[in-house]
């Protein structure tokens, strides 16, 4: 609440009102309600404006956080969220003692770790390569085309993957068939699920992610290139000694954001790529929550799974941010 950058006239008014001799502690405690009241009276229209959006955040973000207590209760519809009996950690115990749960957690972790590692370098390489060429037409064409898949919906991306990888009618089987290799039903094999998931993701987002690095590269001080030229650096050396160090802060931010969301694997895609045959690797926390909570209507257990996920995620994000701040001096906040 204590504001530093208040509008100047307000500060002056308060100073005039507060007795100069009063101690700092008393001063602030007296000031606080006064300031809010004054601000509301003066800017009541602004406060009116935020009511509706705040109501939205309260209802759809904060009430669910409170509702999450049903993870510690035996929720039943008749008694409601607050009336249901307490169950303590019973649901969590049920969860952790279920051997399938370990697999699901490791599936989630491995899938997003793989996605993170695979999708970090390619946009960087793409951006560095684009930055090297001067032909405007070719550059723009590559940029526009690689950017395009970002706007395609998940449903369509997954259907494209299914059709292209289809053993009978797909494009890939035509290619492998040409070389005399047997057709493989990739989506029926658990081992291929992660590859399909991750590389379709890379295919879809590389061009989009490259944009952020392109912007960072555009901001590199031309004097650095001049200096490199004077020192007789070739193109590769310029990339290594000028370009890469210049975009490192951007890479760090992207990395933090993706590690922070390592347990938030998109439900949408994994669920669509799932089939009974690849379930042993494709069942992840998000899809499991959906099945337990919505399909089986076991609300308490479903909430427990979700809560477990949220907490891990928060810890990861805070952890990575702290590490990054210590190591590189760059953090999100």
């Amino acid at each position: 609440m204590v504001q530093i950058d208040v509008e100047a006239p307000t500060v002056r008014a308060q100073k005039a009102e507060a007795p100069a001799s009063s101690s700092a502690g008393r001063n602030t405690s007296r000031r606080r309600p006064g300031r809010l009241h004054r601000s509301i009276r003066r800017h009541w229209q602004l406060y009116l404006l935020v009511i509706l959006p705040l109501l939205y955040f309260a209802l759809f973000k904060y009430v669910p956080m409170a509702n999450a207590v049903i993870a510690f209760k035996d929720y039943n519809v008749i008694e409601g969220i607050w009336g249901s009996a307490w169950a303590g950690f019973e649901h969590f115990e049920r969860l952790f003692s279920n051997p399938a749960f370990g697999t699901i957690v490791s599936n989630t972790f491995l899938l997003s770790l793989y996605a993170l590692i695979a999708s970090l370098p390619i946009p960087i390489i793409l951006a560095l390569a684009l930055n090297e060429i001067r032909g405007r037409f070719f550059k723009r064409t590559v940029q526009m085309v690689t950017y395009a898949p970002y706007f395609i919906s998940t449903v369509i991306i997954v259907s494209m993957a299914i059709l292209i990888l289809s053993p009978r009618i797909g494009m890939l089987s035509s290619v492998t068939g040409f070389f005399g290799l047997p057709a493989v039903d990739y989506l029926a094999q658990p081992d291929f699920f992660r590859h399909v998931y991750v590389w379709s993701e890379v295919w879809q987002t590389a061009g989009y992610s490259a944009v952020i690095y392109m912007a960072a590269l555009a901001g590199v001080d031309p004097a650095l290139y001049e200096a490199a030229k004077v020192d007789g650096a070739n193109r590769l050396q310029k990339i290594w000694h000028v370009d890469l160090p210049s975009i490192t802060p951007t890479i760090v931010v992207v990395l933090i954001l993706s590690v922070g969301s390592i347990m938030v694997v998109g439900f949408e895609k994994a669920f669509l790529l799932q089939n009974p045959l690849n379930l042993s690797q494709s069942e992840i926390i998000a899809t499991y929550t959906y099945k337990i909570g919505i399909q089986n209507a076991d609300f308490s257990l479903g909430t427990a799974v979700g809560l477990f996920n949220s907490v891990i995620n928060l810890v990861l994000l805070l952890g990575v941010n702290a590490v990054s701040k210590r190591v590189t001096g760059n953090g999100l906040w």
Partner: protein
Amino acid sequence: MVNNAKSAQRGPGRSTKVRESTVDRFFLIGVYILLTTFLLVVLLPLWFIVVSSFSSPAAVSAGEVFLWPVDFTLRGYEVALSSPQILNGFANSLFYTVVGTAISVALTVMIAYPLSRADFVGRKVLTGAVVFTMLFAGGLIPTYLVVQSMGMLDTRWAMLIPNAVAVWPTILAITYFRTAIPDELREAAEIDGASDLRILWKVVLPLSGPMIAVIALMYAIVQWNSYFDALIYLRDDSLYPLQLVLRNILILNNDAGGDATSALERQQLSNLLKYSLIVVSTVPMMLIYPFVARYFTKGLLLGAVKG
């Protein structure tokens, strides 16, 4: 390609006084090869889908199509565009996207503008409360229970309200209001006796066109492309958005009807239909994206400055 590279080097843009060394020339050729590979890897799957969609059902089902249409036909499109459930999905998606985006943008501006004002007491607490929802969430089931208790299940409201405001566009809008609108303008308007709402409406919003476009696009694309909310909140299939209809046909292999008679013909047609459907549902996005990409990039970078 080599020619291309050389001419680009000689081009007027950045005339190099020193001649490129042999190493550099080879390196540049490598760069062009790499980029061409990127281009083809992205383009080929898209091309395959488009080409297949114009081929005959039998050829598609036999896997004969690769780089060029076989027995050119528009049969797939005829079926796709005459199916009532697909047309209905289109109409629903259009409605959700237009109305949903309007609601989202309005709510986002309503919270972002006050939070961008330095003289708005309580700004830090409220900003913190908004940003916190990005770090921690109650989860799927607790949110579902809220939607249920509000009686929104299986109504159009469920597609418009529960995800109306996203944090990222809000941060973007706050940053824009704070950095791109000069404070002097507001002060001048204040001296002229304009109220806060009037300032927002007459001074700030007219200057915020690019930002509004960015966040509207962000919301619209998410709304048009996602199926998840529909999957959990809707039962009545007349309310389904296009993406959920597509999922049922493309991924769950639900029969999309058509007027084929024999079982074989029906099977072949449904294979073809998938390709045509992918094209039909993606073309609108592909047509507008070159125009919106610019704004999208701007938004991404605006956010990056803050991040």
